[in-house]
Every structure is written in C-alpha cells, then in structure tokens.
C-alpha cells in the first residue's frame, strides 16, 4: 500500500452495463404515458392516491417547484444518461414498481439468491414478487413490546395520517431541506413509503429494528422516506436493506433518510444496499446530532450502476460524536461515488470516518468526503481514513477528501491508502491450498472486516458470501 498522492482520473462507465437483460421485461405492462416524468399533475395524483392532508400536498408542491428550478449536481459521476422524463414516479396500487412474477426476475439475480441460500419465500419478497413471509408473528410480538414503551415503528405513509404533528415538525425542513439538491427536491415531491421511527425519551431498544419486518408495506421502494427521531437519552439501532440484490423495474432510486439524535441519545443506522445494476442510486442521508449524543453510520454499497451517497452528520451539540463506517464495491460497469460528510458546530465534537472501497473488472469506487469545522467549534477531533483496494488495472479508485477547518484548536488526522493485492500475500494463502479466487476473496474479506464486523451477524455472513460471489471469475 502506498499513500495516495495524486488523483486518478475518474471514468464514466455506466454505458458498459448490460442493459439487455432488464430492458425487454416490462413490454407487456401498459404504463400510461402520462405517468412518465414528474409534473405537478403527477405530484397531485400521488398525494390524492394516498389521501394525504393538504399540508403534505403543499410540501410536495413546494418541493416540486424547487425541483424545477434546480440544476443537476456539478460533481461526481455523469448523470447524462439518466432521463428524468422517462422515469415513472408513481404507479397506482394495482400496478407495482417490482417485477410482477417470478419469471420476470433476471436469471443472474435468481442464481445469486440460490447461492446465498435464501429461502424460497424470502427470495420472492426480495425480488418484489411475493408477500410478506412468516415473520408476521414475530413482528406482531415485537410490535406490542415496542408499543408499550411508546416506540413508533410505522410505514411513512401511515405516519403522515397517524402522527401529523411529528411529521410536520421534522419532515424535510430542519435536516434535509427540499432545496438541498435537485434529487432532494425530486424526493420531496415524489416520495412514497418508507419508515417512520420514534424512540421516546430514555428508552433503549437493544435489538436492531429491521426494516424487513414491514417490507411489503412499502412497495414504493424507489423514493422511500425514512424519518427517525431518537429522543433524549434514548438508544436504538436500525438496520435497513439487504445484501441480496434487490430487483426493481425502475432505474432511479432517490431515497432520503433524516435522523434526529437528541441530547445524550445514541443511534446507529446500518444499511446494506445492493440495488440491481440498472439503477442510479442517488440517496440522501443526514443526521442532526445534539449535545453529547452519538450517531453511527454503518453502510455497505454493492449494487447500482451509479451511486452517489454521502451520509452526513451535523454535530450541532457540544460533545457530540459521529462515526462513519462504509464499504463500497465497484464491479464491472459500476461507478460508486460514496463517502461521508461531517459538519462540526458544537464544542469538543468528535468524528471518525473509515471508508473502504474495492474496485474490480473496470469498475470505479471513489471516496468523496467533506469535513467542515465551523468557527467556534473548539477542540474538534477528526479522524479520516480511506483505504482502497484495486483488484485489476482496468479498475479505478480515487479519494477526494475535502477539509474546511475554521478553528485553530481542531485536531485533524487524515490517511488515504490505495493498493492492490500483493503477489506475496496471494502466494502465501495459495501455498496453504487455497485457489487464487479463494485467496483473493479471503484477502478482500479481511480488508473490509473492520466494517463488516459492525453489522449484525446474518448481514455480515451474507455480505461476505456476496463478496465471494463477486470475486468469482476475478482471474484474468
């Protein structure tokens, strides 16, 4: 491993994706022309279909106006091939954003399910063609326990109806405002489904709350909104996504996650995203962290053709802390542009960023980061580590860690390493009987271990297995 001194040039490689296996799939479906592209009419339709109160419709319309005004992002991967007018932003309840039958799901995704040993019923849920499987009972039992403690864990659409005061107060104003960027505005206008999580003061939920407990409740996985409020002194861990590939018909995923961690609270948000490779994953995730509170982001990103994702922590309160741990895998035809953003505002705040990326078969996996220390954010401590592993000469990784430090007392450390698998390491593992593929996979798994170990076991096992699958045929 050598220290990264100069940036390698990024490439736009989305055109290499083999689209053919996805493209002919929805011919039979008659998606009305009117529902393609985002118009005020579509926004009104979404709101009325959901029987939303006027205040939410107003928010959507305001966001839509901002969306129309704003330009595309001026950094990162090319979005030139993303035609926003060709996207279906809402389907009526008799339609679906997913494949409608098992036969429609591409063979390679089915194969991956098999290799991961995912049970039949669960496969269908993951592919979006099945109903919720047998976890219903488990869910209800947990739900009762949570309810007794005052925890709210609901579908976002339902939360708008049931908890309007909370949603009104927190939805896309303080944390991720509509005006944040074009896709935030698009999301504000077209959002559908998602999760609402509220943990009352001083309540601790020891086991991770998992989104899949209510997976089928939100078919609109495309623009889902996640709103999480952790009250003072409360603690929780929420885990979302799935390391098995999620197959969706749409080519745009623009979700939004807003987290509020109040005084003395602690929250961990874990996610594993593996969208099918026909997808642009343009996701916004942000947390506001109050006094002495702790926010932890743990994320794995394997899928999508293009990903732009930079979870952000705003360390507003004194003594607040944020940890950002992430791993990204950029394979053939993939462009992963991921990273972290931390804004230090309070005094004696602390942030720790650890990013690991792997690129292979001509893929790109970049780190893009921003740490900003505001004047008055005295004695901030920042540690940024980004490691990239490039598995072949055709693949690319570059690091762009920006630091804006406006406070003399700040302590900042930054390290970027870039490397490949050494011939001697490979020889060592192979001399113990492992094939080259196996040896490479093992070295890669070791490389991401510091992040994978933070995930719940079943996710960690599945992620490791998936890396093995991705590594197959890695030998030139």
């Amino acid at each position, binding site marked *: 491993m050598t220290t990264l001194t100069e940036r390698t040039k990024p490439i736009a490689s989305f055109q290499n994706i083999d689209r053919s296996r996805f493209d002919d799939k929805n011919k039979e479906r008659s998606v009305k022309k009117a529902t393609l592209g985002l118009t005020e009419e579509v926004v009104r339709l979404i709101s009325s279909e959901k029987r939303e109160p006027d205040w939410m419709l107003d928010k959507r319309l305001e966001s839509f106006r901002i969306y129309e005004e704003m330009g595309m992002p001026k950094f990162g991967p090319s979005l030139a091939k993303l035609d926003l007018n060709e996207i279906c932003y809402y389907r009526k309840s008799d339609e679906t954003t997913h494949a409608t039958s098992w036969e429609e799901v591409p063979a390679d995704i089915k194969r991956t399910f098999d290799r991961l040993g995912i049970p039949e019923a669960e496969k269908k849920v993951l592919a979006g063609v099945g109903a919720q499987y047998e976890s219903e009972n488990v869910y209800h039992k947990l739900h009762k326990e949570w309810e007794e403690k005052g925890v709210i864990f609901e579908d976002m659409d339902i939360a708008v109806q049931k908890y309007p005061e909370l949603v009104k107060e927190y939805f896309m104003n303080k944390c991720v405002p509509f005006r944040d960027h074009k896709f935030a505005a698009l999301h504000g206008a077209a959002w559908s489904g998602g999760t609402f999580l509220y943990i009352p003061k001083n309540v601790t939920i020891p086991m991770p709350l998992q989104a899949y407990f209510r997976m089928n409740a939100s078919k609109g996985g495309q623009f889902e909104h996640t709103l999480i409020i952790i009250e003072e002194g409360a603690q929780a861990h929420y885990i979302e996504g799935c390391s098995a590939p999620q197959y969706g018909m749409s080519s745009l995923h623009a979700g939004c996650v807003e987290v509020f961690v109040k005084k003395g609270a602690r929250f961990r948000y874990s996610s594993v995203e593996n969208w099918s490779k026909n997808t642009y994953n343009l996701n916004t995730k942000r947390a506001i962290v109050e006094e002495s509170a702790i926010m932890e982001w743990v994320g794995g990103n394997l899928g999508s053709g293009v990903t732009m994702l930079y979870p952000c922590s705003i360390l507003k309160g004194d003594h607040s802390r944020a940890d950002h741990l992430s791993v990204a895998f950029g394979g053939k035809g993939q462009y992963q542009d991921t990273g972290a953003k931390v804004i230090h505002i309070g005094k004696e705040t602390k942030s720790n960023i650890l990013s690991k990326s792997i690129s292979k078969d001509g893929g790109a996996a970049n780190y893009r980061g921003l740490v900003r220390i505001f004047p008055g954010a005295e004695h901030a401590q920042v540690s940024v580590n980004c490691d990239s592993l490039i598995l072949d000469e055709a693949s690319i990784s570059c690091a762009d860690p920006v630091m804006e430090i406006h406070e003399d007392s700040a302590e900042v450390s930054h390290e970027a390493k870039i490397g490949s698998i*050494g*011939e*001697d*390491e490979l*020889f*060592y*593992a*192979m*001399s*113990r*009987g*492992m*094939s*080259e593929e*196996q*040896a490479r996979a*093992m*070295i890669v*798994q*070791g*490389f*991401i*271990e*510091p992040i994978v170990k933070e995930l719940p076991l079943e996710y960690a096992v599945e992620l490791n297995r998936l890396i093995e699958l991705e590594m197959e045929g890695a030998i030139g």
Partner: protein
Amino acid sequence: MPVPKKLLQIKNLQVTVDGKTILHDLSLNIEPGKVYALMGPNGSGKSTLSNTIMGHSKYHVEKGKILSRGVDITHESPDLRAQRGLFLSFQYPKSIPGVSMSNFLRAAYKAVKKKEIRVFDFNKLLKQKMEMLHIPKDFADRFVNEGFSGGEKKKAEILQALVLDPSVIIMDETDSGLDVDALKVVAAGVQQLRSPDKAVILITHYFRILQYLTPDVVYVLKHGHLVAEGGHELAKRIEKDGFDEFGKNLSDPHAAKKRALETTHTAMGIEMEEGKPESEESPFAVID
C-alpha cells in the same frame, strides 16, 4: 497404500529470478521418513529453492523438473502443490489483516483435505495443536501474522503445518529469530510431524536446530550449486570450519564483495538475507 520411495525429486533445476540465474543444475531426492538439512551461506539460493518448490510465480524454472511422488509439478500452481502435501514454513510469513488464524486455517484445511469440517470439530483440532506448541488461546482469533513477534510468526507456521499435516515440510530458516525455549518448542513440533511416510527439509545456516533434530542427509548449497552431500557429520564439519572449503572453483562475481559485507555484518551481529531488508527481526529476538 505403499509409500513411494521418493516423495519429492528435484531434477537438474535451473531457476531465474528477474532474468538472473540463481540455481544451476540442481538435483535432490527427498525420501519418506527422513530429515534433510539444506545448508549454505547467505545468497546461496536456499530460499529460491524453497519458493520454487512451492511454486512462487516470481521464480522461473528454465530447465529441469520438480516431481511429487513421480508426478511432474514443475508448472503447477501453489494451491495444487499444497493439496499434494507440500508445505513451506515461510522465513517471512505475510500478514493478512482482518482474517483470523482460525478462519484462515479452516479454509486451508478444507482446501488441502478436500472435505468439510464443522467449526466445532475444527476448533477442537486447532486447540489441541496450539496447546502442543504452548500457544495462548486468543491466538486463534488474532489476524494472520498481523502484529506477531518474530517468534510468534515461526510458531504460527509450525502450527499450520501441524493442522494441515503435510507429507513434505520445508522449513525456511524457521530457527532464526527464536530464543532457546521457543526453538525447543518448535523442534518438538517438527518432531511431532516426523513419521515414516513424511519428510522434513530444514533450510538453515544455523546449527542450533540441528541439535534438536538430527538430519539424515545434509545438502550444501553455494552460489546456486549443490556443492556437497553427506550425513549428520557433514553439518558438524561445517559448524567447525564454515562454508569456505566448499565450491571454491565456482565463480561468483559478487562473492568478494558479499563476503566482505558478511564479515562486517557478522562482526556487528547482523544477519543479511537475500534481497530482504537487513535485520527485519533480530535472530536473537525473544518471543512472548
């Protein structure tokens, strides 16, 4: 199944590294039940030979053959050689961060034995072998060679050999970097591996390990040539008189310079290895 007479044969081997010829027309026969000592001064080609036997891609066989139980493995990949029962205890084992010893060894065990083993059963096996080498329990959870002391690395190599149970064990300078107690433990470990159907090759320029493991055959290597072959008494003679008397007629363009350097280093108590940074670890390091 009868044990073949020759576990490993090296036939007229010529090896180049980066275009430079390191081994010249080298032939060796390794028979079951025997302990071999492969001796020679620094730069004589000992490590080149061990890496070539194991199949490192950096070492090119220009001429000659390597046979394992009569099968030509000259161009086989290292994993297949390991599966045939060849094992190299590395002089400088590589670390694999993030991979625990137990996971690494279980994967190796499954590959070499070509069978599944339950985690529970494997851990039992591992624990037993670790106790044999006086290795503390938490060792199994540590990452492969990461942050290991010199002595721990050597013990870890022997541990791997005990778990994988190979038929030809090549120990490349396993005795360097060990204190007397650790050396005894390692020698006892190797003793465990000895059996009528296995062979042990000790590559060394020390004599310390030979006090604990008596070689049946001693080969002397110099400037990439096999210059002498004999029994245990040959090692004794070298211990007394050094390597100078061997291969005097061989030309080595760098010999004079190298000898001068070696003398200096020996005087300073520093050991010099082929192409390695000097004193990566002290030969007298004490293990934990």
